[in-house]
């Protein structure tokens, strides 16, 4: 009965407004069509994305240097790569954009903050060396070529073409200069003055420096790394190691970064770039190699000590840490995988993992972002604190050594102290110049800083008049 009445009401409604009923039905059905079509198209697009990781619109060869050309085939990776212009601080690292008035000699309108103004103790450590003139916080990959070209260090000292090994996209220029031979081109450019070699390069690090243009496999293009790894492996008993032939894919995801983020020196008058790894990657093994070669970067202006400058040894320090030990590559944290639609790509916006905690850390560490950030900052804070103690110790020691030298202390005593200074400041700089504030290997970083303090204090003891040497 009730049912009949409902049917009756429906019919009555239809009788009074037949067109409205039709229109409502059509609207509902159309909405249904629209939703289904949207879904269909969305699913279709995702399926297409998953099917074609990239569309080849240009041919890439071993001569394709310009990353913009590669970017036509790999627009997502290229977009991320271009974002390395970002300047963003973390608590203990990262650069801040500082405006500057461009001049003819230096057209940069933005630079990073000056580290030697932030911490004038660095000027004491580097007295007599170009770094005491100008040293700024490192910026992203996009600035590597400009910042090297226009630093005041260029005026303070004559820089060789060797610098471009890592400050430019060099794979193609080396091959061109060497008539197809990478190593020959490398040797040729090393010996040119910086300004002349600079004319042969165009881009900061680009696609071809890490990727094979045909297979996109990772490849090593830096002769310094190829030779350095061969020496390291020879020291471990592996003969004729060829990194491009023998490294695994996961190793390559660190090695491509290790091409440049390393300690190095310019060997001999031909300024050959050498990675000092023949005895191993630890700070004492590297220093032993320098001692054996009687190598010094410069003579300290205040003490006359034959001292060394450590350069960003990220690869070496990372190798001593737990992440390396667990098989985690540089790219796992600095270029973590990310999803773009249905595609999984490496994030080519290379940056501090602390700016990308969800992708960089949470893939393995299931803790909230705030917790992971505070863990990392605690590690870095401890290293920073120890670094400051080591820096104070070194500056005090340099002051004492300077006084002793002008005061006419015995030659042997001064020589002993100078050697302690060489050790103390190389150890300190090894952590200071390293770009993770100790995070890449927390315990190793603190050990090195502890030893640096010990060298500084031993050096001060060595200067005491009564006892000749405190070994």
């Amino acid at each position: 009965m009730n049912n009949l009445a409902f049917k009756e009401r429906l019919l009555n409604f239809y009788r009074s407004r037949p067109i409205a009923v039709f229109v409502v039905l059509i609207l509902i059905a159309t909405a249904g069509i629209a939703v289904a079509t949207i879904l269909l198209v969305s699913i279709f697009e995702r399926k297409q994305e998953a099917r074609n990781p990239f569309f080849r619109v240009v041919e890439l060869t071993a001569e394709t240097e310009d990353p913009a050309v590669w970017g036509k085939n790999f627009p997502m990776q290229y977009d991320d790569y271009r974002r390395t212009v970002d300047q963003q601080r973390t608590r203990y690292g990262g650069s801040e954009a500082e405006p500057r008035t461009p001049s003819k000699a230096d057209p940069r309108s933005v630079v990073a903050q000056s580290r030697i103004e932030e911490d004038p103790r660095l000027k004491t450590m580097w007295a007599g060396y170009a770094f005491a003139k100008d040293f700024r916080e490192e910026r992203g990959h996009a600035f590597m070529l400009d910042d090297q070209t226009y630093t005041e260090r260029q005026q303070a000292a004559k820089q060789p073409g060797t610098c471009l090994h890592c400050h430019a996209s060099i794979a193609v220029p080396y091959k061109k200069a060497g008539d197809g031979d990478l190593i020959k081109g490398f040797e040729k450019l090393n010996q040119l003055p910086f300004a002349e070699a600079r004319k042969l390069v165009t881009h900061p690090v680009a696609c071809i420096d890490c990727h094979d243009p045909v297979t996109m496999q990772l490849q090593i293009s830096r002769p310094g790394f190829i030779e350095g790894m061969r020496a390291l492996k020879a020291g471990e008993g592996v003969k004729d190691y060829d990194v491009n032939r023998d490294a695994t894919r996961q190793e390559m995801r660190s090695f491509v970064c290790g091409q440049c983020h390393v300690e190095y020196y310019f060997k001999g008058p031909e300024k050959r770039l050498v990675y000092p790894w023949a005895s191993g990657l630890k700070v004492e093994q590297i220093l032993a190699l320098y001692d054996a070669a009687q190598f010094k970067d410069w003579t300290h202006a205040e003490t006359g000590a034959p001292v060394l400058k450590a350069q960003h040894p990220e690869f070496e320090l990372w190798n001593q840490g737990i992440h390396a030990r667990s098989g985690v590559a540089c790219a796992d944290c600095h270029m973590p995988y990310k999803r773009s639609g249905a595609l999984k790509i490496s994030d080519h916006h290379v940056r501090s993992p602390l700016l990308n905690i969800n992708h960089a850390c949470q893939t393995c560490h299931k803790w909230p972002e705030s917790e992971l950030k505070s863990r990392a900052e605690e590690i870095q804070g401890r290293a920073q604190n120890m670094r400051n103690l080591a820096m104070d110790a070194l500056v005090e020691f340099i002051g004492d050594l300077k006084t002793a030298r002008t005061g006419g202390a015995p030659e042997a005593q001064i020589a002993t102290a100078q050697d302690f200074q060489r050790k103390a400041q190389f150890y300190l700089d090894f952590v200071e110049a390293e770009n993770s504030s100790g995070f890449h290997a927390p315990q190793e970083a603190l050990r090195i800083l502890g030893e640096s303090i010990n060298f500084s204090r031993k050096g001060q003891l060595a200067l005491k008049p009564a006892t000749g040497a405190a070994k």
Partner: protein
Amino acid sequence: MKTKPSERSVKPPTRLTVILAIAVALALGSAAGIGAYTFGYAKGASYLGDNPASCANCHIMQDHLDAWVKSTHHAVATCNDCHTPAGFIPKYFTKAEHGFFHSLAFTTDRFYEPIQISERSRRVTENACRKCHEDVVHDIETLKPSDSQLSCIRCHAGVGHPK
């Protein structure tokens, strides 16, 4: 035969109502057709079954599927064994809920990555451990404080899909 008064009083179809009726039929038919095709194209039916490959249809779960293949549990448990509750209705209710919200998230591209398990789903999985291992963990569970549930996956995080 005597017809009902209501039916008798329906006006004969006019030209307009015929056209509208055809339009309604076309629209409904298209909606049903496109809907059915989309369902088929998106492998909709596969979601009703237990094949783990279906969970990676939309690519997000690919890593989890790859890891499951290498896990200790892959011979004894599929996705649904641990991620849906026991019983037909709870199971399909959970499937429907996941299906709707996962599709919404993936289609609109708005969700946190790496993906995280929701509180309700975590409880489902915790209970799933006990479906098989109850005898073993019974004695452990009696030790717990009464107001909390001991978590299996806090320590055994890698049994389903190791990192």
